[in-house]
């Protein structure tokens, strides 16, 4: 079957100013899409929210929050990546923040907590549904340089061209090689309750 449009004259690298313009345009388009890199066509944010609470038997306000969580979602495949700068967690107590960064999480050595995975059973129709959808995140969670396979429940909601994703999970601190000194073991819980919430926009917005 013959195409309605004859592309051959455009695709043949012959001489002439029109053809040179076409090839130039093609090259420019190719380099622009390369420089957009891995986030092109995806939904992303750099201003997501995360908090955790890890109060032990003795309540001492062991809790912190951050508003600089990065997350990227590929709407074609459901692949998700989340990155939390450890040093961005803000505590109410300065010394607690210092110990968290220097002694427990060693943020100079392991600056980010990472999740790389997938929304389970992802299909394109999920990008059309209204209301809160229950989802599952499956992937690898890396904290303090130690990576673990995780399956965590979450929610997803489309609203005003954005995608809101959230999850609540419990993290056993010992699983990630985080050592709590005996002196403060009653103040810090063995499991931290973590909440992550991101509002993803099409990249470039």
């Amino acid at each position, binding site marked *: 079957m013959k195409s309605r449009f004859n592309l051959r004259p455009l695709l043949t690298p012959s001489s002439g100013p029109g053809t040179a313009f076409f090839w130039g345009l093609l090259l420019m388009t190719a380099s622009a899409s390369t420089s957009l*890199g*891995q*986030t092109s066509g995806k939904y*992303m944010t*750099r*201003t997501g929210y995360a908090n955790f609470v890890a109060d032990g038997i003795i309540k001492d306000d062991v809790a912190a929050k*951050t*508003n*600089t969580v*990065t997350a*990227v979602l590929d709407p074609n495949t459901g692949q998700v*990546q989340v*990155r939390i*700068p*450890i*040093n*961005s967690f*803000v*505590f*109410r*107590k*300065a*010394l607690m*923040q210092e110990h968290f*960064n220097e002694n427990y999480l060693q*943020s*100079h050595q392991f*600056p*980010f907590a990472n999740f790389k995975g997938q929304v389970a059973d992802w299909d394109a129709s999920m990008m059309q549904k209204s209301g809160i959808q229950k989802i599952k995140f499956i992937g690898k969670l890396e904290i303090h340089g130690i990576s673990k396979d995780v399956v965590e429940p979450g929610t997803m909601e489309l609203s005003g061209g954005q995608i809101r994703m959230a999850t609540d999970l419990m993290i056993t601190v010992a699983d990630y090689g985080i050592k709590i000194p005996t002196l403060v073991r009653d103040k810090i819980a063995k499991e931290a309750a973590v909440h992550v919430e991101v509002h993803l926009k099409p990249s470039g917005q």
Partner: protein
Amino acid sequence: MAPKKSYWIVIPLLIAGLGWYGVQQWNKAPESLANTPASQVLEAQQLLNEFQNKTDQSNQLYLNRVIQISGTCLRSESQGDSVHYVYLGENGDILCQLESKQGPLPQKGDAIQCKGICTGYDDLTGGVSMNRCILTPKN
């Protein structure tokens, strides 16, 4: 006998004083960076270029440190009343979360100087983020 008796007053007072000091230190809130000197002062775009080209070396120099950058504001935004961001760099790749709102947020094209803690380079987005930032007058 009189000096010995005074020990019984001075020692408990010292212990109580030390205890009070310890509790005060433990409960102290994180201080503003307003009076903390920056360990490095550089252009915003230079910071980004260094992280992109020499990530390990840049981590040594800037990560978790108070640094001061200057550049042109690409945009600013707020989340509610207490969370404010300023984006610097040619493509807004440097994200500064402000410690608090210090007057009106800078607008696109404003030349600004920002001091904060560098929380690192994120190769997922190719950007650098800083937090607890304060905007300082441009010299």
